[in-house]
């Protein structure tokens, strides 16, 4: 069984589960949330479309070499700072992000810098923010969440420097 199929089964299984709970609260509750969910879907589709199609273009103008270049053997806090920027600017999904991290580790990138890169990618990767977080969440929350998350790739790098290599 493929991972995608497993995810879909899990996902629709959860929908069915919570739907059943709602249904047992009474058909009006069920119908109201069904309508609410469908309306959300209709509202979100244009934003997701913009996110998917748009991030393809944004990704196309960011050359991957630039990202890898930012993760060179450059050490110290300047290296951490560029790693954070690289994490946020990395186009594409997890395969690209983690592959860039691996390449950086193998080609002499510092461990704290690579940790900062992976953490920054998880927190800020622009494609996930544009494609998923902004369409689904209140925009004010998203900007706020990103702003207060800024220190944490640096905190992760500092912890990595303190406790040493894996």
């Amino acid at each position, binding site marked *: 069984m493929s991972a995608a199929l497993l995810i879909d089964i899990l996902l629709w299984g959860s929908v069915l589960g919570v*739907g059943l709970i*709602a249904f047992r609260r009474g058909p009006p509750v069920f119908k109201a949330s069904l309508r609410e969910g469908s309306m*959300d879907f209709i509202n979100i589709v244009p934003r*997701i479309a913009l996110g998917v199609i748009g991030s393809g273009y944004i990704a196309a103008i960011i050359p991957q070499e630039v990202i890898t270049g930012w993760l060179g053997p450059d050490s110290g806090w300047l290296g951490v700072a560029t790693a954070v920027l690289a994490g946020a600017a990395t186009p594409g999904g997890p395969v690209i992000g983690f592959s860039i991290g691996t390449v950086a580790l193998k080609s002499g990138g510092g461990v704290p810098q690579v940790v900062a890169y992976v953490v920054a990618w998880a927190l800020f990767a622009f494609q996930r923010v544009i494609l998923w977080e902004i369409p689904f969440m209140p925009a004010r929350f998203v900007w706020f969440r990103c702003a207060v998350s800024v220190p944490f790739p640096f905190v992760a790098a500092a912890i990595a420097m303190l406790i040493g290599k894996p």
Partner: protein
Amino acid sequence: MRKPIGWSTIIIAILVAVSAVLVWRRDGADGVLDILTHDLSLFGGILPRVLAGCLLGAFISEILPHEKVSRSLGPKSGLMGLLIGTAFGAILPGGPFTAYPVASALLAVGADFGATIAMVVSWTLIGYGRAVAWEIPIMGTDFTLWRIVISLPLPVLAGALGRFVYVRLYPKPLAKDDEN
């Protein structure tokens, strides 16, 4: 959830338009079309999951007891609320199409920004889904586990910082969370 068009959407649209023009100048109309067809098929593929995510969010916000949520995840939930948010984010199955609708539903039924930030950050940093599917195969088990251990305190810290800043930025609770 939100108005269909807001400032964020407009900014993104401008960014996209500029990028598309740059792609067109570099690769011509073929380059623009290639990306469009590729991304349209991607879009078609994720639509069912988006629908599932929306339904999940709607059902959850309907069946969750509002008072309980605002007590355990609300502005006055303290460290415990941040820990609950973190634990919830870490065990939440699925991908972005489950995490963000669920986070949005929690926000709607009484969780505050702090606890919701803890949940989202925990999902992205210590959630097992991406680690098992992508990080361990690509970066190796040692690096991944070590990176997760380093990340363990971050969701609670991010949630605490969020709460700290939020009450100073918005001393009075806003009537409606929406785009601005």
